[in-house]
């Protein structure tokens, strides 16, 4: 079973790598937010898998649970800030 868990961790990390490219190239701020949000949800699963690998699932699942909440609230906070700037007509993208 540890082999299967480790394989899943590697596969998911590969996905994170692919997503990091989207975070870097954008092109828009919101594209980056989408990618970061998906990386965040993958982190939840990574935490759970690593917890089982380390033999302390209960402890790691607590962290995963809190991380799920923080990830969601963080995304919503960024979007509120973003929409506020759009509504006030302030620039939201950095100058190229």
């Amino acid at each position, binding site marked *: *079973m540890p082999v*299967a*868990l480790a*394989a*899943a961790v590697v*596969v*998911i990390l*590969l*996905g*994170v790598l*692919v*997503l990091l*490219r*989207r975070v870097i190239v954008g092109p*828009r701020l*919101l*594209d980056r*937010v*989408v*990618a970061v*949000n*998906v990386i965040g*949800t*993958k982190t*939840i*699963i990574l935490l*759970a*898998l690593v917890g*089982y690998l380390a033999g302390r*699932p*209960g402890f790691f*699942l*607590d962290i*995963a*649970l809190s991380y*799920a*909440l923080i*990830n*969601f609230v963080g*995304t*919503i906070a960024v*979007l509120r800030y*973003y*929409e506020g700037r*759009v*509504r006030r*007509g302030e*620039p*939201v*993208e950095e100058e190229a």
Partner: protein
Amino acid sequence: MSVLEIVAAAAIGLGSLLMLATAFGVAVFPDFYTRLHAAGKGDTLGQALVLAGLLCLGGDLTLVVKLVLIVFFIFIFNPTATHALARAGWVSGIVPWVRGGQDPGAPREPGA
């Protein structure tokens, strides 16, 4: 390996592959909205499968409660975050990409 462990390994493997497919979707789809489709859908089932696999490995009641809660949160949060992102894109005037030209439903000029 017991039958339950084989089921767990299969679910974890399939789930992690689905999550990888989601990542590729976000990387290769042509515009913001189509990437949202990949982000909002691919992950929900992939994660639920991995966590269901972990559930098959057993443990005490608190582990079961925590895993079920995480799946529940993902099912609530993922579509909500997707919708919030789509709305933010819409109000800031990101015009949806269509095959060959402008979309007649596009709202206004890009604000950014």
